[in-house]
């Protein structure tokens, strides 16, 4: 009785292949020009379109584009709030400017970036972006003649957009140092100060932030090597919380300034301090100001411990990346992304209204 199926299976597969080969001849490419008017989009128009994010353009996108550009982005991990915010900003910008955005997510498996690029490249994008990117990805993009713009990580030979990790960490370190100096002259007088870098391994960008933060702190405060901890909190919020708890246990009488690699790690540190009833012994600055960082600033329990978040505004960064990509497709230059402010609990609801 297997004979009918034996005869049938090859026939079915052949028919399927023939059909799909025929269908493959039918494809659509959108090469029509995009016409949103004359001139370029003004900063006021962009500000109005971006609502609470108040995006400052890095390139004045023309309202008339010669074609509907296709931009591709390899997202590092959409389950991370900052990266999800990038994606949302990019999608909003693509819709606003009339370009197509295609994405993929490597879910923190950076060794698959090249493979992810190949999947996107069959759709013939005009520009591709990635974080962190690497030499292999650059070589693959160059082989296809597609410009690569890396986000928040500089790859030699590739275009760059975003926040230099050194500057990000440095701004956080400066904020910590200023707050700690005041504390050391009052509540913390006579106590041993420990710097805690809540890091993630292996993550070159993360390491750079922590090192830059420590360097910035050391410009104002004396922190010995023995009191400069670089600890691995790799994972979701409960992992850095567990790491910070171990640090607190090992330093029962010390005070801490904590520089985490992002908001989630900072929240983990605050939760550890709270659980140990030692919020008064710690100062934390978070990096990013995404949802987790904003909520921490609104949490009255953390007043006096959470000194603020270094505002990366990832949604705006995503929007700006699209502008940078359009500029690149048109053969123009774009401005650098500017991270310049630390948002405090007093400012958070004005800058990012809740809801």
């Amino acid at each position, binding site marked *: 009785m297997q004979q009918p199926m034996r005869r049938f299976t090859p026939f079915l597969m052949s028919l399927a292949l023939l059909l*799909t080969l025929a269908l493959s001849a039918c494809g659509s490419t959108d090469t029509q020009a995009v016409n949103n008017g004359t001139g370029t989009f003004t900063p006021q128009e962009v500000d109005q379109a971006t609502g609470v994010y108040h995006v400052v353009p890095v390139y004045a996108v023309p309202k008339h584009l010669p074609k509907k550009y296709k931009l591709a982005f390899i997202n590092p991990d959409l389950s991370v709030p900052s990266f999800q915010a990038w994606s949302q900003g990019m999608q909003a910008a693509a819709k606003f400017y009339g370009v197509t955005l295609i994405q993929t997510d490597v879910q923190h498996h950076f060794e698959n970036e090249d493979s992810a690029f190949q999947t996107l490249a069959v759709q013939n994008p005009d520009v591709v972006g990635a974080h962190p990117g690497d030499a292999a990805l650059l070589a693959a993009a160059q082989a296809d003649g597609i410009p690569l713009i890396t986000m928040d990580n500089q790859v030699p030979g590739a275009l760059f957009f975003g926040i230099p990790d050194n500057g990000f960490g440095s701004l956080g370190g400066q904020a910590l140092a200023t707050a700690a100096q005041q504390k050391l002259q009052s509540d913390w007088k006579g106590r041993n100060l420990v710097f805690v870098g809540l890091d993630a391994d292996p993550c070159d960008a993360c390491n750079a932030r922590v090192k830059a933060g420590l360097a910035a702190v050391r410009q104002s405060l004396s922190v010995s090597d023995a009191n400069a901890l670089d600890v691995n909190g790799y994972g979701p919020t409960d992992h850095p919380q567990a790491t910070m708890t171990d640090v607190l246990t090992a330093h029962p009488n010390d005070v801490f300034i904590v520089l985490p690699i992002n908001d989630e790690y900072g929240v983990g540190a605050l939760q550890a301090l709270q659980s140990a009833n030692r919020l008064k012994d710690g100062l934390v600055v978070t990096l990013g100001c995404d949802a987790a960082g904003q909520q921490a600033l609104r949490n009255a329990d953390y007043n006096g411990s959470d000194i603020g978040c270094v505002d990366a505004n990832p949604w705006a960064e995503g929007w700006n990346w699209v502008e940078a990509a359009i500029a690149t497709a048109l053969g123009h230059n774009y401005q650098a992304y500017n991270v310049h402010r630390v948002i405090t609990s007093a400012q958070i609801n004005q800058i990012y209204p809740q809801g």
Partner: protein
Amino acid sequence: MADLLHQTDERNSAAPADSGRPNRRRLWALMQDAGKRRRFVDLALDYGIYVLLVGLLLYFSFASPYFLSVRNLFNILLAVSVTGIIAAGMTVALIAGQIDLTVGAVIGLTTVITSSLVYYHGFSFLAGVLIALVIDVLIGLLTSLLVVNLAINSIIATLAMTLVIQGVALILANGETIPMVNLDLVHFINARPFGIPIPVIGLLIAFVAGFILLNYLRLGWHIYATGGNPSAALRAAIPINRIYRFVFLLTAFLAGIGGVITAGMAASGSGAYGVGEEFDVLAAVLLGGIGLSGGSGRIERTLVGVLIVGVVNNGLVLMNIPSFYQDTVKGFVLLLAVVMSALRYKRSSR
């Protein structure tokens, strides 16, 4: 049985229509229909995975105009090459009744050893690769010592080894990503002799070799026997301990090959590479209907399972479906295949 029924039918046909006795002719017709239905279900369960693959190819061809290009089809094969090579070894291990969860960690360690020997010590890429593979085989040997000599369950032993290997990889790399400064390996892995990428050639070699091993060599038959019933295999003078050692050496070696390919494709080494790969490999193997109990399974079905995973991943990206939905879809596809496999096993054991 049929003759008996036929005779009974002849006797019954002479009986009056309203005699109240059962109509044997009708009963026989009903039984034939039920038999046909049973045979159709059996065939559907046996060949369903192939039909599923063809169905997915058709679907994505409709859904995306880019899916069925030559480049994209090679992309699918390239994307699943590492998983597929390791899955070939895992199939052999599962048929033998064992499992090796160290494969993902071995990938990371291999990339670190290869790239650090080149970057820090100036080794050629060939020397770096050979040394890494020797270390991988030694890891397989150590795993086999734990399972065979100390009789530790392979899931527990390899889970523990995974943590050790990952830690060693991170220590060796100092938590960093080591760039591949000598690009010979990168060029080799990215080469396309006769238009076929090297990793895809590796994938084909792994499955052809596995097919020959399991179907034409005495060792393959011994592997089936050992997995099916180790006591009976032992009584039949099959060296089951040697079989177990062989499968762990094989899985470690193939994971090392996967690590070499990963190092070449990423042009770097990192302890984070390959994390979780063991679950992708298991998903593909289970999708192919290889049972966890051992003693049965066909390696060509694993290849189909690997391709299904690759096709689904690729097709969903081309359709611009967010990655969260991709995981759910993959889970459903795996669930469907596992249910079909369970039903097939249940029916065959009646």
